[in-house]
């Protein structure tokens, strides 16, 4: 009896058309089961109802460069409110012919932030770069030297003010927050208690109450004759507020440090200060980079609250534009524009935070 030996491989069967490629993908991701199919159809219907009219409103029927009176006869969006008032919304009452100065300051800030994205660039020189950059930005904004005309801080407004409050808020709050976190971990009961009370107190109250405190009560704290301008008072409130949140984040990092690190530092005779500076903080702060970025994001969003104490930030300039009779009633367009600005800022930071998280987590293993 002759054995049957298959000499050629049998012909490969292709998977059915309905389970690979586009059809397969659609089947697996949109129409697996009756419930998902129904869900997909309902969602598609809703999208069909919402997206085309929205698109028509925003792009097809919209006007981009007209006066307010023309806008009222148009069905679509009136983006003219943005194009006409862009400079006021972005820069507030900053002298009109000097707008290039805040613009350059903002571009510098964006450039520095962009350069700092790459962690390979993080070194001493970048730190110096930041310090020089911030000073140059301050000079550009304030003027008064180098032939630049002086601009009072009361004239600052719009986007530069928003960025100023958040960037300085975070840079000043960070060291304070680290100190508070160390204080909370301290073995000295009096210091520990002070820090705990501070952190819990600040985290328990809304930012708006601190802003009220800064704008109404703080002048009462100072001896007679000394006044501090309103932007600085709001800035102090934001710093005090953000520091408490940073302290909690840093505490998480400190608690994640194994005890062995402290013991090793003790065994080579390092003092408390050196232990923290050389051993603990570099590791602990690295762990908490991603949550710190999310604090940066919320600090950036929270600066919008200064509108309540009548500072001319981005939101306030927008509202002021809207109270102009010519542009009254176009809130949607104006707020959407501001929302897009905030979204771009926060979204890029959030994306960066995710990227960092991925990098840091792969490094460990």
């Amino acid at each position: 009896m002759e054995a049957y030996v298959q000499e050629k491989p049998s012909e490969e069967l292709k998977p059915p058309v309905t389970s690979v490629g586009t059809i397969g993908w659609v089947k697996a991701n949109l129409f697996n089961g009756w419930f998902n199919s129904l869900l997909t159809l309902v969602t598609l219907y809703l999208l069909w109802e919402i997206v085309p009219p929205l698109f028509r409103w925003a792009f097809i029927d919209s006007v981009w460069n007209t006066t307010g009176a023309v806008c009222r006869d148009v069905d679509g969006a009136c983006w003219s409110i943005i194009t006409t008032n862009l400079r006021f919304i972005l820069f507030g009452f900053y002298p009109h012919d000097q707008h290039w100065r805040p613009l350059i300051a903002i571009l510098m800030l964006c450039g520095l932030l962009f350069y700092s994205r790459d962690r390979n660039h993080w070194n001493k020189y970048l730190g110096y770069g930041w310090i020089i950059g911030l000073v140059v930005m301050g000079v550009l904004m304030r003027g008064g030297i180098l032939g630049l005309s002086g601009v009072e801080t009361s004239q600052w407004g719009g986007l530069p003010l928003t960025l100023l409050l958040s960037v300085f808020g975070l840079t000043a709050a960070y060291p304070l927050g680290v100190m508070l976190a160390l204080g909370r971990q301290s073995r000295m009961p009096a210091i520990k208690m002070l820090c705990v009370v501070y952190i819990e107190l600040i985290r328990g109250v809304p930012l708006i109450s601190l802003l009220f405190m800064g704008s109404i009560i703080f002048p009462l704290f100072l001896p007679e004759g000394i006044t501090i301008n309103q932007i600085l008072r709001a800035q102090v409130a934001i710093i005090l507020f953000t520091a408490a949140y940073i302290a909690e984040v840093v505490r998480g990092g400190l608690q994640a440090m194994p005890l062995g690190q402290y013991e090793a530092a003790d065994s080579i005779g390092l003092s408390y200060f050196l232990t923290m500076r050389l051993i603990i903080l570099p590791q602990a702060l690295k762990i908490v980079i991603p949550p710190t970025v999310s604090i940066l994001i919320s600090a950036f969003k929270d600066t919008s609250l200064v509108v309540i104490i009548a500072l001319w930030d981005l939101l306030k300039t927008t509202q002021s534009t809207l109270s102009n009779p010519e542009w009254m009633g176009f809130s949607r367009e104006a707020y959407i524009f501001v929302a897009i600005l905030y979204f771009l800022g926060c979204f890029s930071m959030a994306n960066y935070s995710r990227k960092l998280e991925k990098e840091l987590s792969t490094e460990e293993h």
Partner: protein
Amino acid sequence: MATEGKAIQADAGVPVKVPFWLDPKKRAIMYQIGVLCMFGLLAWYLISNTLINLEKQAIATGFGFLNKESSFEIGESLISYSAASTYGRALIVGALNTLKVAFVGIVITLILGTILGVARLSSNWLVSKLAAIYIEVMQDIPVLLQLFFWYAIFYESLPSPRQALNPFHGLFLCNRGVIFAVPESHPAHKYMFIAFVIACIGVYVFRRWAKKRQDLTGQALPVFRISMGTIIGLPLIVWLVFGAPTKMDVPELTGFNFKGGTTLSPEFIALLLGLVLYTAAFVAEVVRAGIQSVSKGQREAAMSIALRPTQVLNLVILPQALRVIIPPLTSQMLNLTKNSSLAVAIGFPDFVSVANTTMNQTGQSIEGVALIMAVYLIFSLSTSAFMNWYNKKVKLVER
């Protein structure tokens, strides 16, 4: 440096007198005294400045103003209030309004956030992506901006009361708010409420008994169905006993305003909408993380011992997911409550808004801000006390 002192001691074999600035214990005490002194000096300096300033500006101090007549109106109030009432009552009205927004907001946020979180994990690509877009966009826009946006939409898009939209009988939409019909007040309602409370207590006792019974005998009762039946059934029976009153209080347009029904003001709706849509995005992330934290093996193991899908969810997945979800969830709820203070920006009379008016009228800003802080601290401290209790209760008992 702490070890040096001891080292000297050990080497010499006889106790060597350590100078007090090298003794860690004494040094710690000195540091603390120093810090406390500095803190005390700063506080004394600020307080003395404040007292001098207050005296110069002739501002009264103390909480005596709480008993004075407020002479301002508040748009909406849960308790009776008029301009003749005291500041104290005005502040209570504000606090109740804050609680109202917070409570309604939290309930809706939890529902919406859970739906979004589950949608984010859906195997349906379209739904999952849309939920992701929603979460990302809402998280990245300041909540204050959202409040302004909704408020403006309300004011600019909706017609005046005369041309109010009337999508169906008993509901009106206009720029004065949403006016809708409510059941006309009837003595039955009070008893229905009592019946509801009794049903809740009864169900609680029944569930404990059923659990004990199951632990002892292994027999399970249809607990869920019986509980739902009691909670819905008992008030329903009371309602039927009272002759099933169905008369509705329908709003009607008279002149420039509406009569009857209940009105939700545009401020309230804008505040609620902004807070809910914003916080729901964060809640969705919390829910998603919680569900993902339960490993797949848990579900597979539960299914392999033949638990039904509802049992898998109730006995295996949820207890573990909730342990991860609850702590960040409470902090989100607290955030919502704190963010409700932004009501002051759109004119809803919450606690901060009323306190702000009080401060402007009396000039007693220190007391006003102190009251604001105290009220929010009470909210957050009681929440964290609850959290500590809960964390202890659900803590994993490890070997």
